[in-house]
């Protein structure tokens, strides 16, 4: 009896110790990934001194230069999007607006109510981040609580006796609107609807967020099994009215382009 109790205790403590070790290991590895992401951004998009243009390296730290360069990058990205002849999204985080554009024409403008940007963008060199956003991001995958195309299946009647005229479509705005655009460069854009006091919307957002966090955790676990640093995705999280969020999600093509300015 006493031996059994001691055995259970030993197993319990060993298990606890192993979990603790794993928690620390996971934490260390996860905290390393943002730093490596910053290093990657600085390396890939950082200022490179070329012999042909002997420009002063100090200029890239100048606030006036940075500000003007950022604006130039935003226009550059939008011109590139306009040339693509597709429906694109321009996020102007400095004036909290999201603009849908087709061939450079603003077709819909939405107000962003909340913005949260990953610290990576603030920690990396301003010049590198500006260079990163000078090219529009391309959506690789999207995860959402609503369908991109709400297709309804209808079987044709065999003859006129089976024919029933169409009933009015369901236009109740009941589905919650939360989605994530994962870009080809690993950056993620989270678009959440403003929930207000609606408990159903709050619950839907909580579940969607939890699901995303769990899938990230499972993905990171798999990487850890291969002794790789967990993936870190710099993110831009925005909140806007449900109707606007829905319009943007439905309008943007599967591999649409997004430009960002802040």
């Amino acid at each position, binding site marked *: 009896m006493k031996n059994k109790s001691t055995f259970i205790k030993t197993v319990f403590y060993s298990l606890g110790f192993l979990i603790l070790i794993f928690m620390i290991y996971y934490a260390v590895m996860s905290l390393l990934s943002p730093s490596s992401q910053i290093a990657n951004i600085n390396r890939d998009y950082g200022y490179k001194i070329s012999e042909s243009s002997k420009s002063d390296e100090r200029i890239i730290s100048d606030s006036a230069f940075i500000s003007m360069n950022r604006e130039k990058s935003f*226009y550059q990205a939008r011109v590139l999007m306009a040339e693509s002849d597709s429906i694109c999204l321009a996020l102007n985080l400095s004036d909290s607006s999201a603009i849908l554009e087709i061939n450079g024409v603003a077709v819909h403008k939405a107000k962003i109510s909340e913005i949260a940007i990953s610290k*990576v963008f603030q920690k*990396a060199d301003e010049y590198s981040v500006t260079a990163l956003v000078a090219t529009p991001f391309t959506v690789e995958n999207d995860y959402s609580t609503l369908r991109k195309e709400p297709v309804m299946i209808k*079987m*044709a009647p065999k003859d*006129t006796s089976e024919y029933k005229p169409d009933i009015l*479509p369901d236009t109740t705005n009941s589905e919650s609107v939360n989605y994530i655009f994962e870009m080809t460069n690993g950056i993620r854009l989270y678009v959440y609807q403003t929930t207000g006091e609606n408990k159903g919307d709050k619950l839907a957002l909580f579940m969607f967020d939890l699901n995303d966090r769990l899938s990230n955790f499972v993905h990171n676990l798999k990487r850890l099994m291969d002794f790789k640093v967990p993936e*870190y995705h710099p993110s831009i999280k925005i909140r806007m009215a449900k109707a606007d969020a829905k319009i943007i999600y439905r309008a943007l093509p599967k591999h649409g382009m997004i430009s960002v300015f802040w």
Partner: protein
Amino acid sequence: MESEGKIKDNPDPDKDNSQSNKNLVSSDPETISNQGETVQEKPVPEPSDDNSELVNLLLHFWQKIYTNVILRLIIRKILLTILIITLLIFIFSWFIYIIPYLQETGKGNKHQTINKTELKNDPAYKKQMSQLAKDEQKLFRKFVAYTPGQSYLVINTTDNRFSLYRNKKLMREGFCSTGSYTRLTNAEGSRHWIFKTPKGRFWIQEKITSPLWVRPDWSFVEEGLPIPPKNDESRYEYGVLGDYAMSLGDGYLIHGTIYKRFLGMPVTHGCVRLNDDDLEAIYNTLNIGSKVYIF
């Protein structure tokens, strides 16, 4: 051998709990046996007249719990369960919430911006800034030029609304009807059609007055009618498209409707339906070649 004052463990606690409880209450509470383990107990403070009523009540309650093995066991198990649940929640939160939060809070090498007058007076700096300003202006002008100065129409298929612009100013807006996103399959399952309004940039290719609707195959399939041969008389219907129609190509039209109550809803087979007044205004404003942006 158990020493005096200790209570020997009951092998079947359910069987003789009342007896053991009696023993516990009546015995010296310094040492109490609990499931084969001997525990050294501290004396329980007893209620006295010096304490307030509330303190006495609490002490009395505490004494009751302290001297009752079953109650203590239950409380112990509850506390253990709470502890385990808390630990599990903490471990779960660690991976799901705490680590992602910590990833966003760590310190990094923030690149410092400078604002030096010495640098601003440098001719190389001035040259580079002027070049940058020129580039920015050039890009801005290029971007602004994309928005047509002439009239154009914007159609929002999610909200089923339209906006008519002239000289970059909003002239008129209202409801329309766009594609229903219905996927129709014929009774044999051999053919299917998806009724959605295409998105992107289009232009008016043709303007038609008193348009005639040539019913396509799906129109018959949808009603369970046999598909007539091409150019059959049953395919021609007058008046259902309103007074005007504008072609966007590939058979898609902007036209009027007899189903005005459906305006603002996604009910069409891909065309854009408008009410009579809006249709007339748009027909009169847009020319052949005018842009139509659908999203």
